[in-house]
């Protein structure tokens, strides 16, 4: 007991830790959530412009969403939302004891990464006006 106490606090070298894929997907869940939170004012503003009844709001919406920097941010937020969404489903499944085994958890983390990136590509091309 006393030896254990002596080793505390434990300092973790964050730059040397090799996270397993599930851990990597998990920290991305946090980063994507933080990004979505920080960009909420932009998203609500765009909602306001998209639902505005005046011609001015329609023009402003086109101007803002036509800006390349805004497009880039929206592309990032698309990924953030999709990753957060897929990871959330994974968390809910693990809550009800689905996919708790190590290999299954690894596979589901990989699935989350692949699916969210693929959907980002599909929606991103739409966002950039490819189709």
């Amino acid at each position, binding site marked *: 007991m006393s030896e254990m106490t002596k080793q505390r606090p434990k300092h973790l070298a964050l730059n040397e830790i090799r996270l397993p894929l599930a851990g990597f997907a998990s920290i991305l869940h*946090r980063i994507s*959530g*933080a990004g*979505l*939170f920080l960009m*909420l*004012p932009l998203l*609500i503003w765009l*909602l*306001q412009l*998209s*639902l505005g*009844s005046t011609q001015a709001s*329609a023009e402003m919406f086109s101007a803002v969403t036509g800006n390349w920097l805004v497009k880039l941010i929206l592309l990032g937020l698309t990924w953030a939302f999709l990753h957060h*969404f897929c990871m*959330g*489903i994974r*968390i*809910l499944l693990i*809550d009800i004891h689905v996919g708790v085994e190590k290999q299954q958890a690894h596979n589901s983390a990989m699935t989350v990464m692949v699916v969210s990136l693929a959907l980002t590509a599909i929606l991103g091309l739409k966002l950039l006006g490819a189709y």
Partner: protein
Amino acid sequence: MQRLVVGAGYGLKDWLAQRVTGVIMAVFTLIMFAAALGGAMSSREAWQAFMANGLIRFLSFLFIVSLCWHAWVGVRDIWMDYLNSAALRLFLHVMTLLALVGYAGWAIQIIWRL
């Protein structure tokens, strides 16, 4: 060693709130995705007519409340995990809460004005 645990339970409430609000938002997302495939976002007029629908306004309201609640628990967890200064934590907790309450009011006002 005897441990006196005081105030246990509030963590469970937040954990549960995070799940419930997450499910509400996930369902709303699927509804919006289906609506988009059905052409609800094909033009400005179609989008505005869709969002003015009574049921959608009701669901949008639930989504906004869920989002802000969900963000509160999530962002608060980030402050709690990484900040050691109680004063800075308290300050950012209050700022986060004020921002989210303001965002909720702003967003609800947008959809209910339709």
